[in-house]
């Protein structure tokens, strides 16, 4: 029983970066942009947030946890959004191929993260990490009182703020997409650029905004991976630490059929798959094979999604296309 409980708690913790990456990409794809650079943006967000906290801690005599957190979040969001902005300029304004631009952003962002991550260490004499204040803020539960309730407390109230933030974000995003004019306009942009344009929606502005905000949200996922200590030290740059998460997020968008609230469940399943080997080791499955289960699951999902095509649950119809009003 405790095994199951511990597993579920670990799964929720593992859900967070995937959910943030997925939410960001969902928002982006709703505008018709297929940004394959999620991985790159997560790297950019992760390293920028880490650097923000480290420099703040260095500058402040007595670092305050929430200030450090806010600085990290803002830096991560802005840096990843900047990556998304580069992508937007190239694909929206300059009409470059979205697939290749996304891959370029992955190469650039991965390089960017590792480059500055190592530079951060080099400049501090070989090792740079955030202090306990910041690390605690990113890892400790925010409802210490409630968390002591047996079972339920641990299952529902024991998490750090990022977990709650990501779930809240999913719900807010679902509300905006399906219940507000902004969401309606955005969905129309992704479905049919020309229709949205003719109806007076500023297609370019919506695409830029959705892509940049989406990129920023994905970047927060990168920050979580860097700061979280559940599968490593936490608060320090580890070479290639984010590798794989961004791509899983892109796959999860398809799994969640472009729906933010469904993304919560999908991210939970994948989070569970990625930590399962620690809680339910199977003697005849070596750990290095167990590790690839999420990737096999992704393939199963991709194949099954493609085998049953329905009118509902389809990607935005204009996904991957550029728009030029005067094109004839």
């Amino acid at each position, binding site marked *: 029983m405790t095994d199951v409980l511990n597993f579920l708690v670990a799964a929720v913790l593992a859900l967070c970066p995937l959910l943030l990456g997925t939410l960001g990409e969902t928002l982006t794809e709703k505008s018709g942009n297929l940004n*394959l650079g999620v991985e*790159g943006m997560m790297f950019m967000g992760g390293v920028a947030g880490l650097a923000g906290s480290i420099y703040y801690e260095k500058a402040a005599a007595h670092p305050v946890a929430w200030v450090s957190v806010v600085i990290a979040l803002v830096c991560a969001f802005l840096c990843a959004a900047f990556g998304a902005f*580069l992508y937007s*300029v*190239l694909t929206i*304004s*300059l*009409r*470059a*191929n979205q*697939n*290749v*631009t996304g*891959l*370029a*952003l*992955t*190469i*650039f*962002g*991965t*390089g*960017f993260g*590792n*480059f500055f991550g*190592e*530079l951060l260490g*080099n400049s501090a004499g070989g090792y740079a990490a955030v202090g306990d204040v910041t690390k605690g803020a990113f890892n400790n539960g925010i409802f210490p009182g409630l968390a002591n309730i047996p079972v339920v407390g641990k299952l529902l109230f024991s998490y750090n703020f990022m977990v709650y933030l990501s779930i809240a974000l999913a719900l807010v995003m679902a509300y905006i997409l399906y219940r507000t004019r902004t969401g309606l306009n955005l969905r129309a942009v992704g479905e049919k650029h020309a229709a949205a344009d003719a109806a007076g929606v500023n297609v370019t502005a919506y695409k830029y905004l959705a892509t940049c905000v989406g990129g920023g949200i994905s970047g927060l996922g990168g920050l979580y991976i860097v700061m979280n200590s559940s599968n490593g030290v936490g608060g320090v740059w580890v070479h290639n630490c984010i590798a*794989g998460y961004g*791509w899983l997020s*892109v*796959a999860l968008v*398809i799994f969640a059929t472009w729906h933010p609230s469904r993304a919560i469940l999908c991210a939970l399943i994948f989070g569970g798959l990625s930590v399962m080997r620690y809680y339910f080791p199977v003697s005849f499955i*070596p750990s*290095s*094979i167990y*590790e*690839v289960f999420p*990737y*096999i699951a*992704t*393939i199963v999902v*991709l*194949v099954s999604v*493609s*085998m049953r095509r329905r009118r509902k649950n389809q990607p935005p119809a204009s996904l991957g296309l550029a728009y*030029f009003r*005067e*094109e004839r």
Partner: protein
Amino acid sequence: MNETSIRDRKEPFARIVKRDDISRVKAWGIRLAAILLSLLAGGLLILALGHNPFAVYRDMVTGSLATKTALIATAKIAIPLLGAAISIAPAFKMKFWNIGTEGQIMAGALAASYFALFQHGNMSRPVLILVMFAASVVAGGIWGFIPAFFKAKWGTNETLFTLMLNYIIIGIVKYLRMGPWKNPASGGFPKIAMFDDAARLPSVFGVNIGWIIVLALAVLMFIYMRYSKQGYEIAVVGESVRTSKYIGMNVPKVIIRTIVISGAIAGLVGCLIVAGSAYTLSDTSSGGYGFTAITVAWLGGLNPFAMIIITVFLAVLTKGANTIQTNFKIPASASDVLIGMILFFMLGCEFFIKYRLIFRTRRRIEVVPND
């Protein structure tokens, strides 16, 4: 109605107009300018880090080209990079976004390693090397076949599928390294043994024969894509699946055949890496070549000859990045950042080849709204 919003409006600042045609020279001039601009942007980054960009760039060039050792090291990077880019070309021409080259390389490396490690005693050296080539081609082909089959049959998203296969094959190699293939002589350290001398590729001019193989592949791929019926089919499927069906092509067959070829070439590249320079297998054998090769293929416009030039350029950057890491303590990941920037500029410059901007010339018109 919202009249005020119109009051301040004037003619757009710039309008975009499609170019009818542009001379080849001008188009390449624009591309060259883009590369120079990206190097300039890289220079600014270096400057911001407190180094002299000229010194850094100079060291990158000398560190990769000036001595024979440096040249050989650069060639060792260029061989798999060009091979991987050649493997990507037909897939991308067909608009099959294969980003699983990395995994296909690994599959080929794995298959070749099996014979190099465990069968080297059973055959003569030429036979062994030929068998390793064949095994890597088959393994890479299989690793390409899997996603191609699902794409052809159900339209399964190939980008993610091929990518996931990368992680899976890496997991398998990791398992072999830590378990069945672990070298008992490595003292508890989970490592695969070095290849027997018989399983190492011979050298020509100080570099393993891989360079001859990839250059030959470049020529063959050029001919295949431009003059063969299969190459024509790839181009038509890439442009329009509906046209291909209308004209009676067996589209699934074309997709599967092309990606198997693509994967097979990548598999061969895997063999060139393990038997030509690494002399062992590890879970980092593919070394990111599969990803960088996407850049090469795209920048070269999927033309194998143009890809040779781009390969040399990127190999110099990569080797040079190692040099500046030693000389200036700039992390070697700088090469990825630079490659990313070059790619951004190159992708962006295509716009200026296809379109022209017309800037506002007329005086501002006084706009009075309807009421």
